[in-house]
């Protein structure tokens, strides 16, 4: 599974993407977020507060309770600020 980071999530973690293989018990977007927090202090800082984050599954906006269900690409980012 490919995980993408944008804006301050990207700069805090220090990378824009990584490929991960979480264990089967990581079933939802929030499970994945918590599992990624254990990868290092940058991950824990960037991903520690879900209220500050938004997520997308295969490039569609989703809530944190969404099942991963074989998704190929998951993204974590701050609320958007375009326009």
């Amino acid at each position, binding site marked *: 599974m490919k995980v993408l980071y944008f*804006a301050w999530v990207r700069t805090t973690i220090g990378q824009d993407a990584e490929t991960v293989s979480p264990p089967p018990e990581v079933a939802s977007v929030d499970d994945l977020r918590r599992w990624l927090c254990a990868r290092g202090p940058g991950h824990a800082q960037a991903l520690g507060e879900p209220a500050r984050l938004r997520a997308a599954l295969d490039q569609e906006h989703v809530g944190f309770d969404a099942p991963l269900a074989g998704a190929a690409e998951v*993204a974590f980012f701050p609320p*958007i*600020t375009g*326009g």
Partner: protein
Amino acid sequence: MSGLTLTRLSAEPLDPMAEWAAFEGRRTGNGAVVSFLGQVRADDGVVALTLEHYPGMTERRLEALPGAARARHGADLDLLVVHRVGRVDLGQPIVLVLAGAPHRDAAFAACRFLIDRLKAEVPFWKYVHRADGAGHWLAPPRGGAG
């Protein structure tokens, strides 16, 4: 009849008059056009913004906007949305929306719909460059995306 659709991300400076001329040259002959131009605002020491996007998702979300606008405000709308990516200096355009319709009500409504939906749904993030060399990621205003 479906109208003209032009959506694009631009890594180059956005020239609103050139975009408008191209739009006029190709559209299907509606009677009114409403425009929205978003520019880099002179907030507290801001000298530029850098617009980050999600390659793939940003384009898909942008391309979905005209269909949603037509479903609400008329199948014959002519619509243009061009949004900058990369660094944009103070006062320069970030986004241009043009909505052409037979009459002004639909043109105003469609233009408003497009910019509001863009701000809520299309992934962009603004990094603020300040005159003193510092910078920070812009937070959305309270109550939702900016």
